[in-house]
């Protein structure tokens, strides 16, 4: 009789849960539609438009899911969770995928390869990323991490043109496999000692706390390996420069941002299972020193990203290391796991999305227009493409955190959040993180301005110019730049909105 009741409650929960996955169904539908058109029709140019419609539509459906309460919805007996916070993460990712599809449709190199899968895989990738944001059970975490990795490998492989790309694809896969093996091992340890796979199980923390201290540290550390790989944080950042260098800038618009946002969503959820909110104060699970752990990771990531970026000669490798440094900044939002920290994280993710997308669009433009791949190729480019060069200055200034651009507002919020976390816990590791982040900002000036200096202050050695100007690019980049400036000067509305729905 008891078994019957349990089964019945399971079924009821499942039945109630299906409707929360409507955006994912619509994505699946559009993916199948794209696949169908690709197989049976000759004219494939509609796939792009269709996918854009599909992804935007799923974004609309996701937006509709924002609920009045900030309660966390348990789906499928706690396999997945959904809350307004997760919906914001999902919306950000959807925005990235939309921008990617629009931008990829302007890329001639993709048109020449005639690869429709480039576009109809996007909805499927988005499903994987959404699942990653929502997963709340060790199994779903592992499955969605793997699913995201799989599509990432696919996208790297799709943009392969020569052997060097094949090498970077291979490195990506090998590192990814290592990370997921570590993740799986961490999960198995955690399962072994906690006795449950569900992170939401009320007994999970109590049981897990009985494990020996080294085991707790080891299993969390191993699981973190998988997460850190996804957000490209030290010490699991090694793949990023090689992958960036070997992958086309168009693909990087997607790959440099989307998995990172999903990784942060997962990270934030995961921390949520290890923290308690008591009288508006967030307390971490006392068995594990999350603040110190996150601070150390952030410091390592900031230092490695910033200082190695200084010595790069290739624009994409530089952007990869700069991206690692940015990861360090983003981690600052999670250190205290305060509500202001999460808001700062979400806002900086939005900023990062705008800046990185614009940056890679412009880098792609310079690649196509002037065959500029190395930093030295950027010499004197302002003479050939003044507008694009000025736009790149705005993007880089925002990355560095100069007001009144969105990067500054984001960094300001992150610094404020860490300061609050420091005041609340008086943990010196957080203070060191803040100071390291300040120094990393200064160093970032140096490496971003190597490019600016080359563009504006040096004479061109040789510059190839492909004749046709890509006006369509400006149509894409200019709105992003305007958003960078707008959210820098007037961030109130968007932050208030995020705040009102998540806290």
């Amino acid at each position, binding site marked *: 009789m008891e078994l019957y009741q349990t089964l019945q409650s399971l079924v009821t929960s499942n039945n109630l849960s299906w409707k929360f996955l409507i955006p994912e169904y619509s994505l699946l539908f559009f993916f199948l539609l794209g696949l169908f058109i690709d197989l049976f029709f000759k004219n494939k140019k509609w796939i792009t438009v269709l996918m854009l419609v599909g992804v935007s539509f799923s974004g609309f459906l996701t937006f509709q899911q924002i609920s009045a309460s900030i309660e966390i919805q348990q789906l499928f007996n706690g396999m997945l969770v959904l809350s307004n916070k997760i919906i914001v993460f999902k919306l950000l990712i959807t925005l990235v995928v939309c921008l990617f599809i629009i931008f990829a449709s302007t890329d001639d190199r993709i048109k020449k390869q005639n690869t429709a899968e480039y576009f109809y895989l996007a909805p499927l990738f988005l499903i994987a990323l959404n699942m990653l944001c929502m997963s709340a059970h060790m199994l779903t975490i592992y499955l969605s991490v793997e699913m995201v990795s799989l599509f990432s490998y696919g996208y790297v492989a799709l943009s392969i043109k020569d052997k060097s790309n094949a090498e970077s694809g291979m490195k990506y896969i090998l590192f990814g496999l290592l990370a997921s093996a570590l993740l799986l091992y961490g999960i198995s340890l955690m399962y072994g000692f906690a006795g449950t796979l569900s992170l939401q199980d009320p007994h999970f923390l109590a049981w897990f706390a009985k494990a020996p201290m080294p085991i707790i540290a080891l299993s969390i550390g191993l699981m973190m390996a998988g997460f850190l790989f996804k957000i490209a944080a030290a010490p699991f950042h090694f793949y990023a420069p090689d992958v960036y260098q070997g992958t086309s800038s168009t693909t990087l618009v997607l790959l440099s941002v989307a998995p990172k946002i999903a990784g942060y969503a997962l990270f934030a959820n995961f921390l949520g299972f290890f923290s308690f909110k008591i009288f508006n104060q967030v307390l971490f699970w006392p068995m594990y020193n999350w603040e110190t752990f996150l601070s150390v990771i952030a410091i390592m990531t900031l230092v490695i990203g910033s200082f190695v970026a200084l010595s790069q000669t290739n624009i994409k490798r530089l952007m990869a290391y700069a991206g690692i440094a940015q990861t360090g900044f983003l981690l600052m939002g999670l250190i205290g796991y305060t509500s202001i920290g999460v808001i700062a994280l979400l806002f900086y993710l939005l900023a990062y999305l705008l800046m990185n997308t614009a940056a890679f669009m412009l880098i792609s433009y310079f690649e196509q227009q002037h065959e500029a791949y190395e930093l030295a190729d950027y010499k004197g480019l302002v003479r050939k493409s003044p507008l694009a060069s000025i736009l790149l200055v705005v993007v880089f200034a925002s990355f560095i955190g100069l007001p009144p651009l969105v990067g500054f507002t984001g960094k300001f919020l992150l610094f*404020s959040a860490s300061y609050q976390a420091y005041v609340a816990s008086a943990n010196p590791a957080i203070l060191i993180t803040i*100071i390291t982040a300040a120094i990393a900002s*200064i160093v970032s000036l140096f490496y971003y301005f190597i490019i600016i*200096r080359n563009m504006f*202050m040096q004479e061109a050695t040789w510059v190839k110019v492909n004749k046709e100007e890509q006006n369509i690019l400006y149509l894409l980049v200019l709105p992003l730049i305007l958003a960078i400036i707008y959210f820098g000067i007037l961030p109130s509305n968007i932050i*208030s909105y995020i705040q009102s729905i998540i806290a």
Partner: protein
Amino acid sequence: MNNWLSILIFLPIAAALILLLLPKRASNVFRPVTIVISLLQTLIATYLYSQYLKNPQGYHFVERADWINLNLGTFGRLNIDYFLAVDGLSIGLLLLSAFVMFIAAIASNEIKKDPKAYYTLFLLLSAAIMGVFCALDFFLFYVFYELMLLPMYFLIGMWGGPNREYASIKFFLYTLFGSIFMLLVMIGLYFSVIDPVTGEHTFNMLYMMDAANYTKDSYFSIFSTDALLFHYPVRFLGFIVLFIAFAIKIPTIPLHTWLPDAHVEAPTPVSIILAGVLLKIGGYGIIRICYGIFPEAAIYFSYWIGLIGVVSILYGAFIALASTDLKRMIAYSSISHMGFVILGIASLTSEGVNGAIFQMISHGVLSTMLFYLVGVIYLRVQDREIAAFRGLAQPMPRYTLFVVIAFFASLGLPGLSGFIGEAFTLIGAFKSASVNALLPRGFAILASVGILIGAAYFLWTLQRMFFGAPRFKGAQEWHLKLKDLTATEYLVLIPLALITILLGIFPSLLFDASNNTINAWVHETWIHGIANLKSMQSLLKF
């Protein structure tokens, strides 16, 4: 109409946007537009100055509006105001800035490359400078402060001399180093200070200056019993960080090394802006922010601040004496003269601080004149080695007249503006020993030695370059090139020379505006500083 300050700030931004939209062909309108805009700014600033003199105390032309206002749930609200106002401390510097920008715009006739980009950046810089002097919200101040960096970087880096890349990034890195840490202190202050009206945290500088507005257990509170960081009071660390940020800007020893490089590489108008305005922001920041917010630390460290000032005076003067490049010599003389500003502030006497403000304005005018004069000969023969010229007075007698005025004013000849500033700061430094016992008398004596060395290098340069029989490195060719002043050059130099003389004879033109504010400021800094220091010493036991 009560939004004059906004007009002053946003007029150049609007003009910059219009310039951006103009086609590149219209290259001959860029400079006139910029000149007209900066003339308008100067007129507005003059009007504001005259209005201020009618009732020279308190804050005038106040503008206040919500800018960023966020509800952060349990963390209360994030309030950032658009808060502008001027008082006796900033009104003079505001007028100086507008005027120097006007002169720099006229002096920009040597810029031939990319006029569109140049004047757009110029106007953007102008807006940021006006904003810095008007902002009373720390966040707003910071935004304007950082907004100056990018235009300045490009102005030095794109239109500068052969070593411009190095000089421009050095300038940028030094300033950013100071300002990033200033951001951290700013955030710390924000979370410590409560707006007494609304009960929310605030960036309002005026609230930060009142010890009563700090929440009791916050890090920057005077009444906190555990506000120590690395066993050192947090308020002292905050003061040191802010002081370093502004000391880089002034610049003082040992943070000065970016200045000679930047000056040597920058084109004449940019040098004028750099020396005439940007250095003043350092002095202004120390008076308004460092001393205003942390009076007890200012008193506690006054000996060291005074020492830094004295060392800057002497070191700058000695290096200037040894310089072989005329522009480098003037750059180091700037460091020396700005040392008097620090010394005057450190004395915390009415004479000293009034003198510091006078010295800043006087130096703004004089350095504008000096750098323009260097530009005049550099434009003719592309050389400014002191040794390359001899007997310049013969081919260029009128030019020499202006050089003599500028040099004598700089070395502190009575009757010219430099004398008043230096004399008052020295009086302040002398008086300090008997009034508040902050600075030893020896500082004032050493600083006077600095004036002596200043006289030596200016007179020696005058003798080497201008007197005697003409003999130039470029021989006959230079004789033809070294023509006397043109109409534009007169247009720049005559008002500058007149102002120097006028301020030297009627120093009350400036003192009338600053005196009330500074007297009150000195009094409050002293009273609050001593009270805070006592409270902190008893609570923190350091």
